[in-house]
């Protein structure tokens, strides 16, 4: 296949994609180690990164399992956290220009980072190349570092003595942080954290997190603390 030479915009998209891929892949190590510490074996850990391929959902699933939550709760947490990927698909598909089986591949690579890098480009070609470079780069890197992290986690022993439980909490903070850009988002985050913590002694493990989502449904439906500031700030 011959292709025209890359434009300046496309080369910039490639550079951005590669740097985001490297940064993201690096924390696949923490996922791999945490997953093994939660009781999954190396194969199960790698299967999650290959098949699910969505960092937040993967951390949530192993977090619920580590906390002693029921299997259905672990599935529900991962699935709900993965719903945002559908929005990303809607955002990128008008200009991605793929059809047939390639759409399935594009869908699997549609995650926070590939969407963010591609939407940051202004030129159509740069958007497409940014999406694919970031998506493929993270897929390869994330799966390799997951394996490395799982192998490391396997030899660590007692996860708490290495602070891996604190690392999991810090990882969730890191996934949450970039989303707290509006007053509404901050309010929902604080309220959800309080609701979940308050319900911990009252409900089976894992369920308080799911109940806390009601906060988002209520605030989102009514647009309470309605978010003009988000658009103005962006």
């Amino acid at each position: 296949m011959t292709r025209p030479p890359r434009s300046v915009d496309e080369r910039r998209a490639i550079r951005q994609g590669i740097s985001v891929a490297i940064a993201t892949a690096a924390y696949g190590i923490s996922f791999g180690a945490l997953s093994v510490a939660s009781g999954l074996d190396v194969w199960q850990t790698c299967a999650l990164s290959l098949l699910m391929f969505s960092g937040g959902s993967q951390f949530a699933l192993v977090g619920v399992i580590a906390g002693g939550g029921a299997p259905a709760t672990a599935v529900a947490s991962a699935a709900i956290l993965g719903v945002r990927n559908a929005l990303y698909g809607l955002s990128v598909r008008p200009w991605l220009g793929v059809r047939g089986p390639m759409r399935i591949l594009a869908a699997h690579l549609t995650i926070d980072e590939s969407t963010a890098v591609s939407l940051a480009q202004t030129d159509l070609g740069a958007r497409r190349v940014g999406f694919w470079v970031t998506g493929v780069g993270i897929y390869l890197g994330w799966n390799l570092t997951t394996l490395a992290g799982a192998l490391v986690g396997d030899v660590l022993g007692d996860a708490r003595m290495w602070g891996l439980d604190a690392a999991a909490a810090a990882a969730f903070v890191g996934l949450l942080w970039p989303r707290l850009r509006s007053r509404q988002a901050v309010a929902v985050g604080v309220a959800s954290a309080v609701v979940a913590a308050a319900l911990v002694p009252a409900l089976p493990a894992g369920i308080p997190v799911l109940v806390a989502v009601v906060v988002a449904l209520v605030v989102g439906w009514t647009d309470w603390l309605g978010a003009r500031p988000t658009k103005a700030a962006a």
Partner: protein
Amino acid sequence: MTTWHVILLASILVAGTKVLGHLAPAERLEGPRPRRILELVTVSLLAALVAVQTLATGTALVLDARVPAVALAIVLYRLRVPFLVVVLAAAATAALLRRLAGWP
């Protein structure tokens, strides 16, 4: 459900949702309200996971070495320290408090 069932079922749901975003009729998920709700659901779930992962041990609320570790993580994110460095710093904080200071 075995652990493999959990992994496969959750993976099918998450990957299936991605496919839905690329193939489903767009009208269903567009408009400001569905978008806002979906974005806030992500915030809500992540914030709840932070709280539970920091404070819960099974169904008990516990203040242990995770609390200062997460507080440090929040400070470091505010200072725009990269994700991996923050996660390692949080782990090191909890590990050192437990090993050297005898924290729970």
